[in-house]
């Protein structure tokens, strides 16, 4: 979930009230927004992933005004349609295919804090729906320096020359990619064999930006700017449109007037962006009531939705208008949720249903595990729990166990946790090696899952519940653990037989396969002293491991 930080004074200015921590916490109680920190200077919020419209300070203020009951429904925005034109050239297709453009005029961005908040929202959109600028990158420009129409073109990096934002001189796009930090950080996103770079240009061929790397110094934003041109480029048309709608309608909250652009793609498709109108979602009142669980009145439903800053029409069911900057309405259930939230979950109250009589039961594997566990405790063994994730070093090399195929992850955070265990014994031996200073005898066991590579299974691997036990003392041997295993299995009504076997690190001649009804169910033996010494254990250790059946 994204976290945004805004200047407190700017939020107060937008809300028209002084904020203290308790008051703000209280306002947010029935919303999905969390207050992360609150100081005299800054307020930090955690925004839910489905409400990216709250990532701007203006969007957050718009929502809070609804919660406070100060404003209801969708704000009235002035929209001037198709005021500018954007032409997309064929060459961008393989480089960075999508662009949308919008213009917001007469915006009040007079304070330093308002610009800081705007940049914060832009950065957080890059990190989240932008996937670090790969999917979406936003450029903000001082429109007074721009001569429309706008052109989105891809040109050879060595031929493009402009002054990048914050640089004193003109550079070629190639130099930007090779020399500037931003070029090095994001250049890989647009790398292509032809050496092209995508460019936002105006009709006089001025470079406005080279997405997703850097803007041009020419259109730098300064406090007091009135008209803001927004370009959003990327690899996913839905995502770039969403980002543009969020930014444009946030700026419109500052008294701005939205001018849409007609964006014309080479195949003739024309888009109008930002999205100029709200959309409709229909929901049945009985459905809403069934989800909410209370027979709340139509009026209450309507009021809840208005406070959620949606518009509502009651005619043949419920018609909800959803503004362009919200994309969290896929299904009528999303309307029901909005009602439940705004009405207040705690105000709804809770109850246990009376029509859900069912009989509970433990999974057979857990039921069997419980029996094994109780018997092992009766035999005086201490239960331990080890991780399923481990390393080949721990499973094989460190204890002289021959390597065999195990499940491996492709993106381990560290080598120590890069494979899944196929046996409990290595974990038990490493456990003992960390406790040689603790009094003996040491009898430990673990009941847990191992994961085995298995071609015949749906996912190429299967889990198996096992019991592993290790017994260490000044003098301990095969027959000690064998007598325990025998007691355990015969208590469970399982007849076992041993069969000669060789399985390092168990000692040759003191190691056996465990068979139950002719099937192999485990292994038992004494650990090779050479292995014990290697992991710092000087007392003999005998072990067994069996399937929990």
């Amino acid at each position: 979930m994204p976290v945004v930080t805004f200047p407190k004074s700017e939020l107060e200015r937008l809300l028209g009230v002084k904020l203290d921590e308790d008051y703000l916490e209280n306002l947010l109680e029935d919303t999905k927004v969390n207050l992360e920190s609150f100081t005299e200077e800054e307020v930090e919020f955690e925004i839910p992933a489905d409400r990216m419209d709250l990532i701007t300070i203006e969007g957050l203020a718009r929502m809070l005004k609804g919660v406070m009951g100060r404003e209801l429904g969708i704000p009235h925005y002035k929209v001037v349609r198709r005021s500018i034109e954007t032409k997309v050239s064929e060459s961008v297709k393989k480089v960075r295919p999508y662009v949308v453009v919008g213009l917001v005029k007469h915006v009040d961005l007079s304070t330093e804090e308002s610009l800081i908040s705007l940049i914060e929202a832009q950065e957080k959109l890059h990190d989240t729906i932008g996937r670090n600028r790969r999917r979406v990158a936003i450029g903000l420009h001082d429109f007074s320096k721009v001569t429309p129409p706008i052109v989105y073109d891809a040109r050879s990096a060595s031929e493009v020359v402009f002054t990048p934002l914050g640089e004193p001189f003109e550079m070629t796009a190639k130099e930007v990619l090779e020399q500037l930090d931003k070029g090095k950080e994001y250049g890989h996103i647009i790398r292509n064999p032809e050496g092209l770079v995508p460019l936002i240009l105006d009709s006089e061929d001025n470079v406005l930006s080279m997405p997703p790397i850097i803007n041009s110094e020419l259109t730098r934003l300064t406090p007091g700017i009135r008209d803001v041109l927004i370009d959003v480029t990327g690899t996913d048309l839905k995502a770039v449109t969403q980002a543009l709608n969020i930014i444009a309608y946030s700026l419109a909250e500052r008294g701005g007037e939205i001018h849409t652009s007609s964006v014309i793609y080479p195949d003739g498709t024309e888009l109008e962006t930002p999205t100029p109108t709200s959309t409709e979602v229909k929901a049945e009142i009985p459905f809403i009531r069934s989800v909410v669980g209370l027979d709340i009145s139509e009026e209450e439903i309507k009021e809840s939705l208005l406070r959620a800053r949606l518009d509502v029409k009651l005619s043949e069911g419920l018609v909800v208008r959803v503004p362009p900057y919200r994309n969290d309405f896929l299904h009528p259930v999303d309307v029901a949720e909005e009602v439940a939230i705004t009405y207040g979950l705690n105000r709804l109250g809770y109850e246990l249903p009376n029509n859900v009589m069912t009989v509970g039961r433990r999974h057979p594997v857990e039921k069997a595990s419980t029996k094994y566990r109780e018997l092992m405790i009766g035999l005086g063994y201490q239960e331990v729990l080890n991780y399923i994730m481990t390393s080949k070093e721990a499973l094989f090399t460190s204890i002289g166990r021959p390597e065999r195929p195990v499940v491996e992850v492709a993106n381990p955070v560290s080598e120590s946790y890069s494979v899944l265990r196929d046996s409990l014994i290595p974990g038990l031996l490493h456990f003992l090696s960390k406790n040689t200073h603790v009094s003996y005898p040491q009898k430990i066991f673990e009941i847990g899952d191992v994961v085995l590579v298995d071609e015949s299974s749906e996912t190429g691997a299967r889990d198996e519940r096992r019991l592993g036990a290790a017994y260490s003392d000044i003098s301990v041997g095969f027959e000690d653990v064998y007598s325990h295993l025998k007691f355990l299995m015969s208590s469970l009504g399982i007849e076992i037989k041993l069969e000669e076997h060789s399985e390092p690190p168990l000692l040759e001649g003191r190691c056996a396969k465990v068979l139950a009804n002719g099937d192999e169910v485990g292994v038992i033996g004494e650990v090779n002293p050479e292995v014990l010494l290697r992991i710092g254990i000087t007392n003999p250790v005998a072990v067994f491991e069996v399937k929990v059946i």
Partner: protein
Amino acid sequence: MEEISLSPGEIRLLKLLIDYGGTSRLDDLPLDKSKVSAWAFLLRDRGIVEVREESRIYYKLTERGLRHLTEGLPEEKLIRELKLAGGEAPINVLREKLGEEFNVAVGEAKRKDLIQISDGKVRLQGDDIPERKVIEALGKEGKSQLDWVDKGLIDRLKRRGLIEAEEERSYVVILTELGRRIASGEVSVVEEVGKLTRDLIIAGEWKKKRLKRYDLKAEPPLVIAGKPHPYQEFLEEVREILIGMGFVEVKSPIVEAEFWNFDVLFQAQDHPAREVHDSYQVKVPSRPADLSKYGQLVEKVSKTHENGWITGSRGWEYKWSFDIARRLMLRSQMTAASARTLASGLPVPYKIFAIDKVFRPETPDKTHAIEFHQCEGVVLAENMSVRHLMGFLAEFAKQLGFDQVKFRPAYFPFTEPSVEAYVKHPELGWIEIAGSGMFRPEMMIPLGYEYPRVQALAWGIGIGRLAMMRLGIDDIRELHSQNLEFLRNSRVR
């Protein structure tokens, strides 16, 4: 007649002491050294003996003393040379023979008046060396108080570094008035038995003996026995609660297809949780999951993602990829188990739960583990509402001992509405314990349930965090503690 009961050990000590005349050092008594002082103190507690601490000085040979014991003292060597030379020899010859010991030898011999020196010659006139007797005695006995030796001689031996003193503390036991009355037979002694034995019982001896009363203040010997793991016990408790509420436990594989972990849950294929830093992808096995058994479900899920299919949803409006759905991963949420179970076609109503491990590529620290338990619960029934969801969560919290709950809205990709449940902890305040919600129609309808008539209430609980609160630990790694002592000392709750 007056009577007193004593254990066999105490009786042995007392008898010996009487034989030794009523007083003795404990060390001088021919008894097991490891037990005798315990018996002495027991007798003292009964007022039969008095125990005094006494310290004694013992002497023993130093390393130098030991050497001179065998090869002779320097002055003895001088005398030996003089005797060999016929009672007289020139100084320079003797100096050569005795080497660096010459000066000591001459000094000691002169002091004892054994030699005379004149005209560059040394003449023998006596051969009595009292040191010899002392070092020989010590050589034989090892150590001795040397009470027969003159104080001056002892000091000289010490100064010459031939012997050293050692202080030894020991106990002296002396019969008291009561002890003497026992010795004289005025008070009789009855033998007490510490432990019943088979022999005592069979022979009827136990009737004649007195059974020793237990010292209730004494600590019993430590025992190391088997115990369940405290975290495992907590997981069992949670299982019990859910079974009691009518839930059936289900399982799913650890190596999972993204299809079950994400796609069936209507989690979009470009959702950030599916990226490398949020879930483990699998290198071995290297082949994709075999979903051929689920052809129809795959088709429905695909359409639902792309355009909503018949669910009434817009869907994600993208091109769904079967190859992404088939990718293998390590289960990252227990909802995968719910999805698999729901896909098997459950009767309505039905309740399921799963408690198992999920895996996330985190850097392990106090609050993050790469694998941790999640507890997932699902109520599948007709006419369910968000109020019922909160009802189940409140009941579950109550069973765990939390009476106060509150709820906040939340966002989870596969539930709508989504609810976070908080409980009031006496010290820590409000704590989030569960993420929950009602499964979305885009999940329920492809799985074959008649939404919204049939709804599923679902929740996931990070059970490890609850266990930490219960066990009073603040490092999540301790749930898999590698410390045997910690586990042996853990409390069973």
